[in-house]
């Protein structure tokens, strides 16, 4: 099955911003990413967007489609409709067309120490740590974050505060705090309890709505708040 569709793309060439329309014939099963490639390869080679794995694991191709942040590779054109308004993600500076600057986003992720912290860390002589399937499931779903930035784009707290760590970073912190092998929980809680941390969240929960991997950042955030509250009370008496 084929029919004509309209891609309305918000473009930016480094100086000016404008909307451009592209009409072409799409076939059933064609994804938004394939549509973007078709435009780039056949209609306008200057169109810039990020893409890599085209199977929803690399996190490159998140864009706003009709207002909602989604992975272009996972979104079928016909599921959206005949007119698709495609824009870069919000809350990050636009570099060109659909490409936003994610450096700040990644720096925030780095800021929460998103790695396993263990006192007995021994590079030369690693040993097998035990973790039951139950312990694994306590954090596993939160380890599926692909850092596509969809949650960060949808978050109204990130919209008003550029220093706010945002849903993805705090979810990463939560994922490691819940790992039975980890010993860095207190350290990490100190990092997310500040004025740029968990208390900036207003539970709009849009992050969980738009997450393409169903990671539920809003849930991680709220669990993290509870942990953070306990951590803060404890630190008063220390």
């Amino acid at each position, binding site marked *: 099955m084929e029919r004509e569709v309209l891609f309305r793309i918000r473009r930016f060439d480094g100086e000016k911003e404008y909307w451009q329309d592209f009409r072409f014939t799409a076939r059933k099963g064609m994804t938004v990413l394939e549509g973007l490639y078709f435009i780039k390869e056949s209609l306008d080679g200057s169109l810039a967007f990020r893409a890599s794995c085209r*199977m929803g694991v690399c996190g490159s191709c998140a864009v706003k489609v009709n207002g909602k942040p989604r992975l272009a590779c996972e979104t079928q054109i016909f599921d959206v409709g005949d007119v698709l308004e495609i824009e870069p993600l919000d809350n990050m500076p636009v570099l*060109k067309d659909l490409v936003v600057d994610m450096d700040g986003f990644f720096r925030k992720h780095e800021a929460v120490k998103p790695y396993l912290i263990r006192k007995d860390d021994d590079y030369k002589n690693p040993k097998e740590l035990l973790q039951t399937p139950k312990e694994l499931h306590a954090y596993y779903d939160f380890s599926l974050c692909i850092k596509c930035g969809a949650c960060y784009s949808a978050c109204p707290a990130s919209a008003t505060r550029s220093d706010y760590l945002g849903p993805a970073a705090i979810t990463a912190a939560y994922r490691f705090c819940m790992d039975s092998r980890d010993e860095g929980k207190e350290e990490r809680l100190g990092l997310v309890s500040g004025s740029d941390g968990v208390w900036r969240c207003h539970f709009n929960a849009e992050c969980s709505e738009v997450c393409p991997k169903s990671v539920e950042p809003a849930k991680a955030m709220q669990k993290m708040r509870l942990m953070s509250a306990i951590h803060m009370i404890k630190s008063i008496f220390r």
Partner: protein
Amino acid sequence: MSMEVIKHDIVIIGAGLAGLRAAIAAAEKSREVSIALISKTYPIRCHSVCAEGGTAAVLREDEGDSFDLHAWDTIKGADFLADQDAVEFFVREIPKEILRLDNWGCPWSRREDGRIAQRAFGGQSFNRTVFAADRTGFHEVHTLYERSLMYPNIVRYDEYFVTNLFIEDNAVKGVSAIQLKTGDLVFFNAKAVILATGGAGRLYGFTTYSHQVTGDGLAIAYRAGVPLKDMEFVQFHPTGLIPSGILMTEACRGEGGYLRNRDGERFMARYAPERMELAPRDVVARAMWTEIIEGRGFEGPYGPYIALDLTHLGEEKIEERLPLIRDAARKFAGIDPVEEPIPVKPVAHYTMGGVHTNMWTETPVRGLYAAGEVAAVSIHGANRLGSNSTAECLVFGRVAGEKAVEYVTGKSFAEITKEEMLAEEKRLFDEILGKSGDENPYEIKKELNETMDKHFWIFKTGEEMKEGVKKIQELKRKYENIEIVDKKKGFNTDLMQAMEIGFMLDLAEVVAVGAYTRTESRGAHYRLDYPKRDDENWLKHTLAYYTPEGPKLDYIPVTITRWQPVERKY
């Protein structure tokens, strides 16, 4: 035009599994050396995240596995073209890597008692594939990336597109790169360079590879005079989802899935009665293609296909062990594998060949190392076993990182000269960006993909390949006359992709000429006009050297230590 020169002791190109592992190894070996990790995407956007099934490692010698068994599986799987000293070293080193990842937070799937679980895989005669559901590569990359954040001497350069390699007196001295965000040309002056840029997958149209895998590192090294080894061996994975080519992991069959033809028959019984669906990939891919050619495939809107049947595994097992497969099949083919079989056919998947290195990842150029898919160490020979590639990245990434530190200690920088810088600037911004011919580079890519899919697919003949080589050369001429539409600097993906297509054309020629010249069938390289393996004449590695007229071929012997070639049966 600003011309920035950045100095680092070690420059690593590519931040996938091998590149990240090399960076960590170097940083662990010395806190003093400065390490640049350059990649054209953010590290976690690399293609390694697409690895699904697992990583092979001998963890349970008490349960009957052994290093010799893993080595033998690998060598037999390689159709005896693997260097056996490298394989022996490799199998002994992986278990530690698995445990390191465990200690760094990788969410390995577990047994009930909390120990690391392992699953069956094609060509592996023991259940030795360690896995994290069916997202093994994804979790490995994220674990390494997160771990790499701990080392202050690893400096990342995300979204820098490397354009050239500078070599003087057969020693490497740096690379040039375009910072995508600004479009500026940047020079990295280095004592050692590690290539970790992955394979040449996008040569083919029907492929499991990510869009970004365009063989940049291979082509840059090749053009700089470094030989490429065994490039004619391209692996076809049996199960690519139709129509996108998205990988349906071998773990589908490792967990008990069946391949069926139109008559519902498990046809592998006729091709590999012992191993059935879990024979090595070359064997299964050829069997499937034979079924399709002989008319026993299913008919679908995108041509004939084979059914990958998981329905008998049950929803619970599929959800636990193959969640990504279920998700992908639903999203990209509209099929729930719990309910109905998945339509698949063989798909271009892996580049066994690569930059020529010895088992210590050293290339013929001093200070230049290669690790991961970009390198041919060679442990995969003519056909790689499933779950050995992520293992290779971990083991040889580590070796490259450590070797590079040893090499740079006490060495001084050799400067990139002003002339070299100006020449590179002119080449990129005047000659390439300035191209305003009348050929669309993306059309050339499409034609290249079609040529490779048609002339260099699973079954090859000399005649078809000869025609293919001609077509590739024709496309190379066309490429001289391309147009780059986008003339702006910042984030110019038009320029970047046009250059990638140039890289791919060179690599395609190496693959094509190598395959045409090798008059035998071995592993993944199968010729209908020479259907037998010919150890007398062809038990040797191909080396391809760049010349402006096309690749010049040379051959070197295979290292055989304990295992003599025998007939390969499964």
